[in-house]
């Protein structure tokens, strides 16, 4: 008897289906991968299971019993836990407070924090999840936040763990570690529903796979009966084409250049003199573990927040002291990794979100008046070209699925035909079809002579797109290697861990991490 059975689940929003006759069976002690394109309805299905949404029709059986959770509280009571696509942590509380939130431990409501912290540390070391219970969540990197989310489930001793795109924000190392945890969970007899867009991960860890396509579940099969090719065909209805990066190496001139960038934030040096130069038509990939200065680097180039030391040059012009708007006017584009915070007006519609970066465009703006027709035309074009799943361009972007929101951001930035582009995690959360498309767009931009700084936690992506690869660690560039096809991955890995690949080794402070 399966642990969980979902039968013929229907759910619609605004009269449009998000789930239609969806079936899902999860056995005890298995890792069950739930796959599907952006907007296929994966998150919706899980939200129904977890009691956040109410289903329109269908049945759910848990442990053989018919159930209907009206709130997450009830789901939790049945030892179901969920890590959401967008983290559900209270930023102003500490790690430990977040983990124990909602629980009634001994001594409640005056529970002994020390004891709770001990228990947390014990569980976290058991699974190899390093966290500091007393750190405020708003000081944590995304990877650390992910660990807190998982700890929340482990602390609650969940039997069924729903993980909605947990690896999207993790570095390869973190992912590896994370999978170790998953395997341990499976050994403990727990079940995991894993939503991901990374097919290799699925092949690596899943026991069973269910694929959603256009709101319906189209197949459930054991992993042993599937191949990567077959899976991608189920998901997007076709084979992926391998990306071809033009290998023209000799490039002239300087597009985006930084020299000796330095930044100190809250007394800690976040950037320690970073220099590099990207030629027009070149992609420089930045590899590195999250939290090593990537965010600061990007913000320094874009002019968000504090002015850094050193200099930022755009086609030879110093732009370090220019306001953001002037940089945008000079053709500097930006795609942030935190799209909901940095890029989107969640309560505004798609067209208005398009307008956010291009309201100064001559076609959009006539003497301060918005030119609605061309705005709508441009938005419609973006929707079509990027295959954004939406009912209309006049609905709030909040209603789109995570992947589709990201597509609009990309469409907007690339539509401006930037001379230089800073891209952070461009395909995070995108399905394989969309990722492929985005990568093609980036390469097309490069072909048009755009200097692109690509920051990605996904080494595969960096390898696939970059002309040169720089490794960042502790706010320093550890080394830059040309991406000739035979990159020494061990050397890159070493640099990411803070060790210089070449003879001169960095001592002390960096190594002991």
């Amino acid at each position, binding site marked *: 008897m399966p642990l969980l059975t979902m039968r013929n689940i229907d759910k619609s929003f605004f009269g449009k289906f998000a789930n239609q006759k969806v079936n899902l069976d999860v056995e005890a002690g298995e890792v069950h991968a739930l796959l599907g394109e952006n907007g296929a309805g994966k998150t919706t299905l899980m939200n129904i299971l*977890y009691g*956040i*949404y*109410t289903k329109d029709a269908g049945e759910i059986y848990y442990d053989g019993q018919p159930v209907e959770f009206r*709130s*997450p*509280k009830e789901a*939790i*009571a049945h030892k179901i836990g*969920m890590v*959401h696509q967008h*983290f*559900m*942590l*209270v*930023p*102003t*509380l500490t790690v430990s*407070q*977040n983990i*124990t*939130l*909602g*629980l009634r431990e001994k001594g*409640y*409501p*005056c*529970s002994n924090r020390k004891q709770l912290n001990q228990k947390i540390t014990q569980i976290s070391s058991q699974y190899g999840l390093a966290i500091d219970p007393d750190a405020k969540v708003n000081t944590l990197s995304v990877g650390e936040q992910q660990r807190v989310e998982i700890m*929340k489930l482990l602390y609650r001793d969940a039997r069924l763990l729903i993980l909605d795109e947990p690896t999207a924000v993790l570095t390869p190392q973190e992912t590896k570690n994370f999978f170790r945890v998953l395997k341990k969970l499976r050994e403990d007899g727990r079940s995991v529903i894993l939503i991901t867009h990374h097919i290799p991960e699925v092949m690596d860890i899943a026991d069973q796979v269910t694929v959603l396509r256009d709101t319906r579940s189209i197949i459930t099969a054991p992993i042993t009966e599937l191949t990567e090719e077959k899976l991608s065909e189920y998901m997007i209805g076709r084979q992926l084409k391998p990306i071809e990066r033009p290998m023209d190496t000799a490039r002239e001139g300087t597009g985006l250049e930084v020299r000796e960038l330095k930044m100190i934030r809250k007394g800690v040096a976040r950037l320690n003199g970073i220099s590099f130069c990207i030629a027009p038509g070149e992609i420089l990939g930045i590899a590195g573990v999250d939290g090593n200065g990537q965010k600061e680097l990007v913000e320094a180039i874009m002019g968000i927040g504090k002015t850094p030391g050193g200099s930022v040059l755009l086609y030879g012009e110093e732009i370090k002291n220019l306001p953001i708007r002037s940089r945008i006017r000079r053709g500097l584009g930006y795609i942030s990794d935190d799209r909901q915070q940095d890029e989107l007006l969640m309560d505004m519609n798609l067209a208005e979100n398009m307008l956010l970066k291009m309201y100064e465009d001559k076609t959009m703006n006539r003497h301060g008046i918005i030119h609605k027709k061309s705005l709508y035309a441009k938005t419609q074009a973006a929707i079509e070209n990027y295959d954004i799943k939406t009912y209309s361009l006049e609905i709030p972007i*909040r*209603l789109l699925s995570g992947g589709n929101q990201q597509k609009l951001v990309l469409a907007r930035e690339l539509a401006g035909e930037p001379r230089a582009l800073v891209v952070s995690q461009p395909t995070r959360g995108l399905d394989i079809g969309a990722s492929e498309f985005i990568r093609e767009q980036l390469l097309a931009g490069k072909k048009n002579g755009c200097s692109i700084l690509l920051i990605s936690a996904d080494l595969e992506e960096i390898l696939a797109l970059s002309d040169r690869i720089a490794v960042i660690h502790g706010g320093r560039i550890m080394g830059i290697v040309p991406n000739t096809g035979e990159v020494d991955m061990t050397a890159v890995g070493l640099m990411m861990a803070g060790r210089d690949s070449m003879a001169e080794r960095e001592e002390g402070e960096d190594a002991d991490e």
Partner: protein
Amino acid sequence: MTEILAVITTYLAASLRMATPLTLAGLGESCSEKSGVINIGLEAIMLSGSFCGFIVTFWTSNLFLGILAGIAGGILVSMLHAVLSIKCCADQNMIGLALNFLFLGLTSFLFLKAFGQTTVLPTCDTVNVIRIPLLSEIPVLGPVLFTQNIFVYIMFIAIGVFWFVFYKTDWGIQLTAVGEHPRAADTAGLNVFGIRYGACLINGIFGGMAGAYITLSQLGFFMENVTAGKGYMALVAVILGRRNPIGVLLAAMLIGFADALQFNLQTMGIAVPSQAFSMMPYVAAVIVLLFSVNHSSNPSALGIPYQRNKR
């Protein structure tokens, strides 16, 4: 020396008298706002508390029942606000303003119904001062802090309790979570709606008590619009005090102090229109606020209804 002490004592006492209703109401409002529900209808809560407290005391001659009735009156308004904001997901500013209008009319109407058109002011007993032995002998503080009535003692105890609950217990953490990130709280298994209703209930209790203080301690009678804008001033105390119980008390004391000061200045006979003095408490609030640069941190979800089924 003794003269200076006497001046300090009188100012302290005057500030505390005026601060008491603002603090009581402010404590409840802090709780409500921490949970994400902002109630501009504090004025209505207080007015309802004043009215119910008075009328029950008038009828039963029992102050204890009167205070309970005042609390009930406050709860009635706060729960109306809670249902409209939590269940109906209506705009909280608008609910508050509407309730202020509604209860200004309702209390005046019911008062008229109860006593008719009259030139005789119906009055009731007021609460007695309870002198706490020994403590009340302390110079300066003794007469101010320990020669007070039940409302003031309740206020002091409540400040301590609120402070402890906010900052030292799981309830405080839950309150913060619900106000900062209700969806996170919900997915962690907290009953967001329940906690918000609870916080609103507490707001009603203390707001009602603040209202009852006006009729049952300060005045001994009720009249139309007897709160005269104190609900708004309590809101000011809440923001000025950053929802910290002690901060709320200090902010309310400051407003009270400014009033005491303006009265004293007026009696000095300076030839300036009196409105110039009357605006002092408000100017003082603005000036103090200037020192809170970059420290005002509202709960992120303040005023935003939580809808589970919505993105």
